[in-house]
């Protein structure tokens, strides 16, 4: 097969498309939808992956989280999990004491929302975090103005608070200086001593709508830890990235001993690093990939069947043409490649449209929705290969049928 052959076939293909505009358009539409489906799936997954990677990154590097529960995306808890003991400040102290691999330990307790007032202004949404001074370092979150909590705040259970930007905006006027003012948290008076740097959001939830108070003060006002409103978490910062595994092993040893977990039984607490969070996510996306791939396969299949159908019709309609071509010397291979190229031209156009529409949709999603979507280079390759492949696979049978027609019978066809 020469380049001339291919060009001849492509020219013929376009002239056939022109001769049957509506029919070709419908077939192309089928392939376009198929390719578009593949691209949307890829785009969604890529977008989610990228967003998640950013989110994890924003938590700060190589932090280890110790929690009553294992990290999970499901809110359902088993009976065993519900009966677990709480972690304590003493646990956090033991962890800090017993491991060489650890730079800092910061336990914190969190309440999901609380009513906060200043003068006549009020907000119900802020998250209240009971923290220790190390929190700032372990989470890589720092004050923008004023100061963060210090040891003496913890020791004396002071009513002081560091507030996030959202809280500032909710309670104070533009020209007011929040530092030094007294705000009321659930009716108790706290003095504002600092304002946190802006931290953006994590999975759509603002992290600037937070109030940091001493952990001891928090426990004075909220003595009970009731899941899921309240959580107690110990954040551990290993010395280096290389220490993550050792630190996790040390923490596990310490906590199993302190909590009396029996040999052979699983941990009665959850411990995870950012890597572990990524693992959970990857499992989740693995399943999603599978489902999305199946959807794509079905969509492409439908497009492909359309192509096959149209090519079979085309072969029948053009039996005479095939006879003429064979009579003047076309081999089976030339006829076969002509019809295959025709099928690939059809699907190729479909793929191209799919790509263009996909790109537009991706841009629209980025512009008008919070979901990040983008089409990587390899998705463009996928679209090309997939649409071409559909053409070859579904064009093969019609092309073969055309190629093996008997010349004299084809010529007699009316």
């Amino acid at each position, binding site marked *: 097969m020469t380049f*001339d052959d291919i060009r001849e076939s492509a020219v013929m293909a376009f002239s056939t498309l022109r001769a049957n505009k509506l029919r070709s358009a419908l077939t192309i539409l089928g392939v376009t939808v198929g390719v578009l489906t593949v691209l949307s799936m890829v785009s969604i997954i890529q977008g989610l992956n990228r967003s998640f990677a950013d989110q994890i990154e924003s938590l700060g590097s190589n932090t280890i989280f110790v929690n009553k529960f294992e990290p999970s995306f499901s809110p359902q808890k088993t009976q065993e999990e519900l009966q677990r003991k709480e972690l304590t400040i003493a646990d956090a102290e033991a962890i800090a004491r017993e491991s060489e691999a650890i730079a800092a330990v910061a336990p914190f307790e969190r309440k999901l929302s609380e009513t906060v007032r200043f003068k006549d202004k009020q907000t119900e949404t802020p998250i209240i975090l009971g923290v220790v001074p190390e929190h700032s370092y372990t989470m890589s979150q720092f004050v923008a103005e004023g100061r963060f909590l210090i040891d003496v705040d913890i020791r004396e259970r002071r009513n002081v608070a560091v507030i996030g930007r959202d809280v500032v905006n909710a309670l104070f006027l533009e020209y007011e200086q929040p530092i030094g003012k007294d705000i009321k948290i659930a009716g108790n008076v706290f003095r504002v001593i600092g304002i946190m740097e802006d931290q953006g959001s994590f999975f759509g939830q603002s992290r600037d709508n937070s109030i940091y108070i001493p952990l001891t003060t928090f426990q004075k006002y909220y003595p009970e830890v009731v899941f899921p409103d309240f959580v107690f978490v110990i954040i551990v910062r290993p010395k280096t990235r290389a220490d993550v595994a050792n630190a996790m092993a040390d923490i596990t040893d310490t906590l199993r001993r302190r909590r009396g977990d029996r040999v052979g039984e699983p941990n009665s607490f959850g411990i995870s690093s950012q890597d572990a969070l990524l693992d959970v996510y990857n499992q989740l996306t693995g399943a999603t990939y599978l489902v999305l791939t199946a959807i794509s396969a079905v969509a492409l299949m439908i497009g492909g069947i359309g192509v096959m159908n149209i090519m079979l019709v085309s072969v029948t309609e053009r039996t005479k043409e095939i006879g*003429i*071509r064979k009579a*003047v*010397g076309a*081999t089976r*291979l*030339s006829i076969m490649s002509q019809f295959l190229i025709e099928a690939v031209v059809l699907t190729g156009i479909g793929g191209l449209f799919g790509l263009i529409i996909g790109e537009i949709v991706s841009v629209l999603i980025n512009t008008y929705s919070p979901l990040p979507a983008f089409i990587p280079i390899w998705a463009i390759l996928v679209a090309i290969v997939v649409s071409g492949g559909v053409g070859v696979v579904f064009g093969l049978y019609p092309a073969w049928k055309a190629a093996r027609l008997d010349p004299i019978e084809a*010529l007699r066809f009316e």
Partner: protein
Amino acid sequence: MTTPHVQTDTQEISHPFSSLIKMRDIWKTYQMGTEELHALKKVSFDVTKGEYVAIIGPSGSGKSTLMNLIGCLDTPTKGEYWINGEQVADMTDDELARIRNKEIGFVFQTFNLLSRATALHNVELPLIYAGISSTDRHEKAIAALESVELGDRVTHKPNELSGGQRQRVAIARALVNQPSILLADEPTGALDTTTSSEIMNLFERLHAANNTIIVVTHEMEVAERAERIIMIRDGEIESDKKTR
């Protein structure tokens, strides 16, 4: 390459390879339900290089069937056929395609032009399958169209041409690849006397240039311009004689 091993005919030409076409006891049988229809019966003849042969016979006598066999478009039910000394029955599909492309120029009773393609593209078709580059192809096709006086109609599609012009496009297509044999099935059937005599003149010129020509016709005037007339009746050769 196969040497003919059947020595049946008494008029067997002494040189086995001097015949361009050699048919021995060819039968073509169609199965029509339970009945057998013999479109051709025990047909044997030879055509040498440069001969101008007319095949004549009543409608339905098997002329087109014979032409299709000679042109390697169809295969006989029985019998042996050598073209250029090669046994056709031994050839693969692709070899037959090559023979049709290089050795045979076929002018069909019903033209058989691609209706969506221009005259030029129709004439280029055999060259495409001969693997000739597009510039050479273009030149040769134009030259072939000019030789049948259609140089001013190259971009016309078949339905934009008269019957005689279509016939001439079909002839140009048959000649463009310089085949060893020109087969023409009723080339003047649909034409008026002026056009048909033009086409017969063209054939005579081709014959003078040492081309081998086989023409099917039912008109005696057309047949008599050939060197030799083969008469067919009911699928059998009735007579085979020289005109001069």
